[in-house]
Each structure stands twice: as structure tokens, then as C-alpha cells.
């Protein structure tokens, strides 16, 4: 296991360098917009532009720019400086991680619990009305865009504009203090964000479980005289959830890079909201920072997933 983790870590670093490099080329070398013009603000003089070019090092050759960018990032963990307010991107990003983390992890708990339960019920009662209702509902939940769901939820349940004002609405997270108040403010975002995921996990688990239930070792478990409950919950689920762990890890990694739509609809000051604002303002350094951060999240989570998988499936040895 040790050598495997080291090998994977080295690959992860290599992957991050590659992704950062690609990000750099997309933003600085492809003729999308002139970074200096973005930085300079409205109708700058040619002198200002030249000055900014020098400050940002844009007048240097591309490889030396790339080197500066990568060495800042990897040796100093420096994500650059925001074009808008001149603050370091790293600090601003890190400030927003707790909000995103709370949102994503809470939602992950909701969608795993809901998705797995629905998946089990659907598989065990396969072909019945319950199965069809639940799978139909899942299809609806997958098809509904998260911003639309968010707006509908706010319209129905938020305590300011909602028809049944029972939950804190948009922007309440920012005003909330302490763990429980913040958690209360996140109830609606958790459910909105987890709807589609819960539906996907339910379908995935149902399919896995149906496959597992026809395995020989399930027949053995029944032949041993185990109760059907134990057969499903101990023997079948154990195999059926294992692939779901992989998907879960990557989903959390991706969302850590910003649950952009949810954070925007509910006005939660997280990484996604930060990226959204940066895109609106053309804040290149910040966009780039959040992009690299997203890549980091996915790479680290996929490493964690691989390690967990080896524990879950004793046949896997690295």
C-alpha cells in the first residue's frame, strides 16, 4: 500500500502541473482577451497598459511566464493576485472553502442516505408500483436543473418570499453564526444540491444491487438460512455500494471546486460563488486560481478513493 500511495502522489503532482500549464495557456496565450486590458480597467492609456504588461511579466517569452506561474504555484503555493481588488487569490479562496465544504459534505450525506435507501427499496421491490414510482421520480430529479430547483424551493419554503416560510432563504448563510445556525441556513441548499445526485445514486445502486442479488454467493447466503433482510443488507449491499464509493469521491471533489449554481442561487459565499463573480468581472487570476483548485480537489479525491477501494475490496492489491 505504501509504495502505491507514493506512486499515486507523484502522478497526482504531475497531473496538477499539466492541468495548471493547460490553464495557463488557455488564459494567457490563446487570443481570448488581453490580460493587461482586463487588469487596467476602463479605457486605459497605452502607457498604463505597457506598465501593467511589465508588472505582470506579459512582455516576457511564454516559457518564462509559464515558469513564473508554475513555480509560484508549486513552490510558494501562490495563486496570483486578483485583478479586481489586488488581494491574493489564495487567501480569498481559502476563506471560502469552509462554506463550500459545509454545503458539499452536508449535501453528500443527504444524497447518499436518500439515494441508497431509494435504490434498495427499488431493487428489492423490483417491478412493483413502488419501484416504478421511485424510478420515475428519480428521472424527474435528474432532469430538473439545480438553479430551477433552487428557485422553486426558495419560492415555496424560504422564510422571506416563500409560500410556506419554514426555512432560511437566500443569503441567510452569510448572516448565520455558529455551526447549528449555519447548518439550519444550509438545509434548503443541501436538499436542492443533492436531488439530482440522490437520483443518480438511487439508479446506480438499484442496478448494482439487482446484479449482485443474482450472484452465486447470494444464493449461498440464502441456502445458509439467512433472513432475506440480512441477505440484502449484509451480503448484497456490501458488494453493491463499493462502486458507488468511487463515484462519491469524485463527485465531492468536483463540487469542492465550486457548487457554482447552488452557491449562486442561495448566495452562499463559497468557492463556486467566488468563481462565478470572477467570471462576471473577467478576473483572470481568480478564474485561474479556482480552476487549479478544482483540479486539485478532483485529483486528491481520486487518490483517496483508490485507497479506500483497496480497503473495501480485499481482492484489490496495489
Amino acid at each position, binding site marked *: 500500500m505504501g509504495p502505491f500511495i507514493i506512486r499515486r502522489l507523484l502522478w497526482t503532482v504531475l497531473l496538477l502541473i499539466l492541468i495548471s500549464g493547460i490553464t495557463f495557456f488557455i488564459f494567457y496565450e490563446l487570443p481570448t482577451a488581453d490580460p493587461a486590458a482586463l487588469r487596467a480597467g476602463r479605457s486605459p492609456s497605452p502607457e498604463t497598459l505597457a506598465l501593467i504588461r511589465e508588472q505582470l511579466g506579459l512582455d516576457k517569452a511564454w516559457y518564462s511566464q509559464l515558469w513564473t506561474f508554475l513555480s509560484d504555484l508549486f513552490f510558494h503555493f501562490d495563486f496570483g493576485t486578483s485583478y479586481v481588488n489586488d488581494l491574493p487569490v489564495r487567501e480569498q479562496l481559502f476563506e471560502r472553502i469552509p462554506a463550500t465544504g459545509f454545503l458539499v459534505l452536508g449535501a453528500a450525506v443527504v444524497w447518499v442516505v436518500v439515494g441508497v435507501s431509494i435504490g434498495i427499496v427499488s431493487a428489492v421491490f423490483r417491478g412493483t408500483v413502488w419501484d416504478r414510482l421511485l424510478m420515475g421520480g428519480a428521472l424527474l430529479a435528474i432532469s430538473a436543473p439545480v438553479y430551477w430547483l433552487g428557485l422553486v424551493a426558495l419560492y415555496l419554503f424560504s422564510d422571506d418570499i416563500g409560500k410556506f416560510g419554514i426555512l432560511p432563504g437566500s443569503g441567510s448563510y452569510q448572516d448565520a453564526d455558529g455551526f447549528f445556525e449555519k447548518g439550519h441556513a444550509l438545509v434548503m441548499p443541501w436538499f436542492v444540491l443533492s436531488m439530482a445526485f440522490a437520483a443518480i445514486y438511487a439508479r446506480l445502486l438499484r442496478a448494482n444491487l439487482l446484479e449482485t442479488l443474482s450472484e*452465486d*454467493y447470494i*444464493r449461498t447466503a*440464502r*441456502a445458509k*438460512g439467512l433472513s432475506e433482510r440480512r441477505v440484502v443488507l449484509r451480503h448484497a449491499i456490501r458488494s453493491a455500494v463499493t462502486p458507488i464509493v468511487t463515484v462519491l469521491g469524485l463527485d465531492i471533489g468536483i463540487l469542492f471546486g465550486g457548487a457554482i449554481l447552488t452557491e449562486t442561487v442561495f448566495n452562499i459565499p463559497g468557492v463556486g460563488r467566488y468563481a462565478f463573480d470572477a467570471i462576471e468581472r473577467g478576473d483572470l487570476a481568480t478564474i485561474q486560481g479556482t480552476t487549479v483548485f478544482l483540479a486539485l480537489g478532483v485529483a486528491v479525491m481520486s487518490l483517496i478513493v483508490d485507497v479506500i477501494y483497496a480497503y473495501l475490496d*480485499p*481482492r484489490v492489491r496495489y
Partner: protein
Amino acid sequence: MALLEVRNLSVQFETDDGVVQAVDGISYSVDQGQALGIVGESGSGKSVSSLTVMGLTRARNARISGEIHFDGKDLLAASAEDLRQIRGNEIAMIFQDPLSSLHPFYKIGKQLVEAVQVHQDMTKAQARDRAIEMLGLVGIPDPRKRIDSYPHEFSGGMRQRVMIAMALINDPKLLIADEPTTALDVTVQAQILDLIQRLQSELGTAVVMITHDLGVVAEVADDIAVMYAGRIIEKATKETIFAKPQHPYTWGLLKSIPRLDTPRDQELVPIAGRPPSLIVKPQGCSFHPRCPYRHDACLPQDPPLEPVPQDPGHGVACVLAHDRREQIWAELRSHA
């Protein structure tokens, strides 16, 4: 009274393609400590009939009729819970592929302990001791250490030994072995059969051995039932089946296995054609389309299993006259 008595058992499955007549009115019985071999091709209904004894074919699309009596209990009328308590406790089963039949994620110790604890009021430590004892009994070397291994860490033969240990751990009265040696190497097959025989005589367990391999039943069984297309077409003691078979299908099976006591240039004779569909069965005797001795009398109806003259324990389902059957078998044997 017989330990297991199956009477006129039929099992049908409703599928999208039609009703599958998997088992079509079979009867057999197994006495305490006896071994019955059920022989037939894939799809002859031999596995389905045994899974039905275990109550494992109960499903929404299954239609089961007939009678199954085990140790004085009516298994077809038994509730799911009663059956569950019999399964793994009084009737145990082992399967064809021991790798896929053991849960890949659990250590074998856990799977054995679970089998004990579901039926007996034992602590984990007691159940574990029992598991180690059983692993030793089935010939797993160093069971105290091996109990903490995962199934994939065993060889095929050792895995089947683990399955046998798990099946016999609660001292069942009946062991159903469904093709227990099919997935194993020939040398390992013999070891597993020896093991089953040894345990059968030591523990007094009755055995139903399901196989397509006459060599396997020759080793283990006292009685043999030959199944074809969901029916038993011949039933007798092992000696009788090998010495005086009466059904053309049994002849075909016997002629298609290689023997050491025949000349080497003797060709094996496969049975022509393929097993029939169980959805649309041939009219009359199910075997007649493949039978070299078919004639008009085969068509009107599927012949019932009837005792052979002078041997009431030997049943055969064929419309050929007894004399004619004796004559054909004598010819077949002299060619060999």
C-alpha cells in the same frame, strides 16, 4: 419412512417467452444416510428440482405443485420462515463454482461463523471454534490460520472444501450437492468426491448429488435417477443403471463416456440432436426426436415411469417392450 420424499413435483416459470416447464411431475425419495444421484444434461431440471426442495425457487413467476416431505414436514406448505430455519440447518447445499459461491469481501471465518450463529445459540468464540473444527475435518491445512483468509486466497479445491465445511457445520440431515466437482480439475474432483463420501459415512448425512457426469454418481451414489426435459426417465440402483439400463437416453449417456476397458480405437458416441425447449416440448416422449429407436408408439403421450418386470425398484419411462430393450442393450454392450 424416507428422509426426503418428493412426489409428483412440477415447477413452472412464467417468462416473457412463455411458460417454462422446468420440472414436470417427478418423484423420488432419499433414505437417511443414503445417496441419490440425479443425472441429466443442463436444462433437464435437476438443479431446479433441488433448489425447490430448499425453497429457493419461490418467486412471483414460479408455479410449484406436488409434494415435498422432509423428515415429516411438508416443505411446499411450509412458511418462508420455517423453510429458512430448515435451510442450512437440516438441509444444506453446495454449488458448482466455489469461487463465485463464497462472498468475495468477507473472510471465510466470518462466513462460517455466520452460518453457525444463524441456527445455533452460540457465542462468536464458540462458533469460531466450531468453524476451525469443520475446516480441519474437510482437510484444510492449518485451519486456525486459514480461517482468516479471503476466498480468493484459496485454490479451487480448497474453496469447495470450505463450502462443504460451511454446508455441514450445523450437522444437516441432508446435503444437496449441485455439480460440486464440475468447476474443478480432475484430480481435485476425485478428492472432493472422496471427502463427500467420507463425511457422508462419518456423519450419516443423506446426499443428493446432482451432476451431468455419470462418473461422479458411479463413485458416490446408491441410487440413480436420470432426468430428461424435466422428467425422470429412469430410476434404479447404481448397479442396475450401469449393468442393465433400459432407457435409450441412459444408453446414450453410457455410450458417450470414455472407458478404460474398451479398445482405444472405439469411438465415443454422442447423443444426436439437442435438448428440447422446455417452453414448447415435443409431442409424446420428449426424447423421441433424438431417439434412434423411435416408432409410432412414441408419439401419442409422454410415457410414465413404470417398473421393469421382475424388478419393482427399477423404473423406466419408455414405450419400447421390455424384451426389445433387453435385446438392444445386449447388442450395444457387445459392440463395446
